[in-house]
């Protein structure tokens, strides 16, 4: 974090599965550059020996009894599918 951060916008957008226009790439790279510059100051904090917190309170595994109970009916679960047929979601061909 000591050197100026370089955000490779093409690489990150690919990781995020997000198509960006050339204009979006230019704008976001500039805006996020200034945000990352601001974030650089975190490097100044002494975190040696400090445990990370994923939550404000320690969260442990929560177990429930393995008992079947009613879930959403198929029609309700598929209600918002963009394309469906025979109780299944239709997607573009995956295997050539």
């Amino acid at each position, binding site marked *: *974090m000591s050197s100026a951060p370089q955000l490779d916008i093409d690489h990150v957008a690919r990781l*995020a599965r997000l198509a960006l226009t050339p204009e979006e790439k230019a704008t976001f790279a500039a*805006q996020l550059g200034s945000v990352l510059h601001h*974030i650089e100051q*975190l490097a100044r904090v002494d975190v040696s020996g400090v445990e990370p917190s994923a939550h404000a309170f320690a969260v442990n595994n929560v177990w429930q009894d393995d008992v079947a109970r009613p879930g959403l009916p198929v029609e309700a679960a598929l209600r918002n599918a963009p394309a469906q047929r025979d109780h299944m979601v239709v997607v*573009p061909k995956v295997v050539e």
Partner: protein
Amino acid sequence: MASPVLPSTLAATAAQLAAGQLSAVELTRAVIARTKAVEPRLRAFNSFDESDALAQAAAADARRAAGQGRGPLDGVPIGLKDVIAVKDQPLTASSRMLANFISPYDATVTTRLRAAGAVLYGRLNCDEFAMGSSNENSAFGPAANPCDVTRVPGGSSGGSAAAVAAGEVLAALGSDTGGSIRQPAALCGVVGLKPTYGLVSRYGLIAYASSLDQIGPFGRTVEDVALVLQAIAGHDERDSTSFRTEIPDYRAELAARRGPWKIGIPKEYFGEGLDPEIGAAVDQAVAYYRSLGCEVREVSLPHTPYCLDTYYIIATAEASSNLARYDGIRYGHRSQNAKDIVDLYFQSRAEGFGAEVKRRIILGTYVLSSGYYDAYYLRAQKVRTLIRRDFLEAYREVDALLTPTSPVPAFKIGEKSDPLALYLCDIYTIGVNLAGLPAINVPCGFTRGGLPIGLQLIGQPFREADLLATAHAYDRAHDWNQRRPNP
């Protein structure tokens, strides 16, 4: 334009309903008329279902007539931020991605409000996927501030705050990840509570940053907020982060817990960037607590300067992960312009998400990516530990902390175009989310230009009863909440 004005508070309304002076149907008709009168200028609602609301109200009246009333919320219209699931109603997160989504089930808070008899009324406008501080990131257009419709209501729960302030509903639910309940409450002049992380179930809340998100109530008074919290608080097995804790009678505790409290003033919250009129109003509130016999002392939260950066790393990282589910396959927007399945993900997300959501997904993906994880995400989680320690350290000396809620009053729609400038609106609210604490906005004055000012009281984990009582001691003795904007 003349429009009917509702009873002043939820508590007063509940008393009228209980005494038979008002029916739930009459009340709901008044709410609908008020909504129709002001919505062309406010845009606080993304949608509302008139006939559904009236049917719920009629059911509430029938229960009361049969002697089976369910308490103070029975028959009272309450609005829900459009990130909280209501079965068979739209759930959009103010995003093109979910523009046509109909919720197949109820959120737990929705189930609990139904059980309390509330009339679930409308889905309230917000920033897209709850990302923003001005409501300008809504794909359906920004909600406006009822005190001045050329200004923002704050965000992300801007519609919730605006609807309560304008008298379109008696109470509302919002969600708060970095200040999204408290900041709009401050900018619109209403009370807004962000409960302790884990007090209210997140089941059925559209996820933004799961370790920070928390649902909470808006109302005109602290008492009204206590009444709504009563209905929604408590453990839920469908949210594994929800906490098993005793739920007291919050309204009864308002009167029972009388202080005096030891109040801490974190010096880091009164520095550069604070509007002087807001600083002066908050000082007046501090003086009032002193007059009640409260001991007020300065405290330090030394890691405050690092809250904003810590927040934007953790929140965007979690958002990039949570929003990976919007792929155009099972629900949500699906692009018609994709050449294969992988391109379908890229195009659906490009077409469905707005600019701020894309920015946060990019930032979050970056801070989690190979080679940067330790430097950004892991380091931010360690700083989070230090931020939380600061608060817990302060609570060894004081019962509650008092700060401004927002450094600035409501600004003009379109005024702040730089993302970083908008992120700075949250400097006083985000530490609370990182530390998982409860905090409340209480109106404490107006600027010379007539814009609301709010103070923030920050409490100790799961001690909402104490926090509400502390806030009520100020709220009951001041009439800032009596001003009724008529947009």
